[in-house]
């Protein structure tokens, strides 16, 4: 994987960083960057995981400097990823001279108005100066939609005296090319953005707890390994349960009003998808007014509609069940308990199938998958066992 034509230039409304990755041009657009020189650090962070899945060394054709501390960190990152899923092969990195980056300024957190990012924002509000909003990775929306999101989140940030930094990129296209899931690459991408801007400290909000933490691109074992001598990445909020996060957010009306969790729309919560439903249920149990950020109040029908379909949704249901039991809401508790039990019984059936029938159902799915077109093949996840 050859990186060439690394270029940083001022454009009308900010700074554009671009590089050729073999025959693909990767670009980032920042409002500004702290850096006076072109460095390899951000690109190493963005491209390590893609290079591992491609099984190719990362080769910089230009002699641009890199951080020795970061390079050391990539060795451990590779060990962890390779252990999680051997499809991530260990690769060599050929970069320019090893030179520690100069002192950095600024403390930021990644933010899109979602649950985890808002929790981290509120918690470190005293320390933060910036919040970073990205288009072109977790979501890739048209300009008008992104501008609306920027305006909304900028208003929110300014209420707390913070500056919003909108960042755009076409990184999502690189992932699609390699069939690399966002779950595998997002940690490196976030680190890349923080290092390219040249911040001293950047918080990455955790999406999981210490017990249910799966192999993921952003992980408490990984994030600090992207550190350079002068930039620090901090994985934040792992110790807080989802309901603790919602509780903190709902104590701040501005945060609750700005809360956006929806799969379908980055600017409006639909009130129908699983992400909306699980958040609405928690707000109802906390006696908060869901209408500040959701279309309507939560009903028991919404609780019935919240489907437990995998371990992740089971975790959210269990979190809400614990909250329902604590707050004495017996009806919601009974519905959630029933959903969880049905899922557990379905899982048991699958496991018995695996044990007694050699995974007949899985075999059928695999046969079907083998007849799929290549473009329908599933993305590569951090874990060898899939999601």
């Amino acid at each position, binding site marked *: 994987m050859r990186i060439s034509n690394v270029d940083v230039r001022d454009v009308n409304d900010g700074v554009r960083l671009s590089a050729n990755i073999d025959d693909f041009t990767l670009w980032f657009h920042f409002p500004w960057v702290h850096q006076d020189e072109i460095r390899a650090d951000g690109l190493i962070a963005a491209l390590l995981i893609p290079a591992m899945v491609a099984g190719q060394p990362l080769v910089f054709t230009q002699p641009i400097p890199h951080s020795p501390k970061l390079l050391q960190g990539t060795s451990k990152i590779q060990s962890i990823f390779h252990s999680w899923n051997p499809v991530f092969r260990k690769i060599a990195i050929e970069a320019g001279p090893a030179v520690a980056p100069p002192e950095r300024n600024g403390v930021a957190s990644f933010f899109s108005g979602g649950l985890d990012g808002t929790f981290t924002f509120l918690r470190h509000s005293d320390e933060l100066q910036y919040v970073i909003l990205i288009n072109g990775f977790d979501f890739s929306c048209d300009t008008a939609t992104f501008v609306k999101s920027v305006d909304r989140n900028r208003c929110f940030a300014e209420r707390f005296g913070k500056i919003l930094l909108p960042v755009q990129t076409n990184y999502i296209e690189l992932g699609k090319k390699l069939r690399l899931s966002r779950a595998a690459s997002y940690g490196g991408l976030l680190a890349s953005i923080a290092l390219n801007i040249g911040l001293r400290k950047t918080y990455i909000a955790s999406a999981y707890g*210490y017990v249910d933490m799966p192999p993921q691109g952003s992980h408490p074992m990984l994030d600090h390994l992207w550190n350079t001598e002068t930039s620090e990445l901090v994985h934040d909020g*792992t*110790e807080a349960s989802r309901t603790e996060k919602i509780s903190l957010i709902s104590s701040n009306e501005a945060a609750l009003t700005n809360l956006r969790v929806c799969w379908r729309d980055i600017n409006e919560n639909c009130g129908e998808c699983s992400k909306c439903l699980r958040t609405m249920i928690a707000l109802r149990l906390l006696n908060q007014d869901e209408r500040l950020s959701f279309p309507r109040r939560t009903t028991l029908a919404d609780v019935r509609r919240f489907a437990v379909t995998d371990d992740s949704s089971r975790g959210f249901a269990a979190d809400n069940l614990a909250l329902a039991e604590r707050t004495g809401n017996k009806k919601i508790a009974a519905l959630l308990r029933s959903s969880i039990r049905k899922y557990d019984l379905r899982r048991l059936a699958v496991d018995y199938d695996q044990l007694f029938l050699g995974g007949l159902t899985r075999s059928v799915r695999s046969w079907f998958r083998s007849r799929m077109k290549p473009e329908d093949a599933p993305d590569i996840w951090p874990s060898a066992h899939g999601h």
Partner: protein
Amino acid sequence: MRVTNVAASLEDDATELSASIDGYRLWYRFPNTFAPRVNGNAFLVACLLPAMARGETLDLEPSATVCPQLLQNLDLIQDVFVAWGPVLRIPFRRIDIKANVATVDSKPHTVGSFFSGGVDGTYTLLRHRDEVSHLIFVKGIDMQLTNDHLYKEVWESNAEFARTIAKPIVPVSSNVRFFGRAHQCPWPAFFGSGLASIAHAIGLSKIFVASGMFYADLEPHGSHPLTDPLWSSASLAVEHDGADARRIEKLRSIAGFEPALKILRVCWQDKTYNCGRCEKCLRTMIQLRVLGVDAPTFPKLIDLQSVRRLRIWEDIELDFVRESLAIANQGHDTPLRNALKSCVWRNELRRLMRRTDEIAFSGRISKLREQLRAKLSSPKH
């Protein structure tokens, strides 16, 4: 929980660092070549989890100063162990720590690696052989403090190995494991902090803690790649090593170095060097047979019925058996392969049945079994 009477005393050629923890005497004994440093770091690390298990403020006497960086790290340790508490079945709660802060120097360039001839420790040592300056051999961790006979036998083997690789081996003894157990922290939940406290007591600059888990199979555990480094201070770096290699790969690596294979010891039964019958011995013997390796410290695995019937209680231990099966599937040892398949199948069935009981019957079946067992085993009057 109060830590008082922190003191170092010299006896013959050994130093003892000790403290009273609410009347319980916790001690560490090591050679005089490591000059004693009276400070609170070792006791802070050893007492944190017990204090959290009891929900008590940890209060160190004024002279038992602690490193500010260590204190900061322990904030995150507390978060992790509180989250892990339900899985470890210990009711950890966040607590306050009262201690004076001061940094303390370590003996420079002293890089230790815990070593007792086992798979993980040997693998880590061989991998970092150039960097490690001292092998740390602890009495009171994998054998009873009072088992002098077994200690002598193991010490002599390990000392000979240390001479072979031209590294000093440091005999250390401590009752830290028993301290944890007496304070609601059994060793599986405690051993990361227990080992780290030993390294702090000695005053090393770096210590390797060999991993017992593989990155893909991590679970809440006393020693973990996430938590072990957090027991570090400004003067001691604690490094968790080897989670990127499966146990069978480690054994394969050790098998290529005859002096290490010659002293291989995994048994915790406190009876002989390796009893050859317990679960740890059996799974090592399985892996040796899968690899086609003879280790002089183990009997050859002949009784495959014991493999079929092996009862596995922890997921991580079943993972070790699965590793062996994966390798056996590529080989020609059909009887062993079939025995391993049977072992994995039986234990997965047991796990499924336990889960079925929990989910479908709210655990009533296992409760009923326990009651029946208690009734049948009670003496008839």
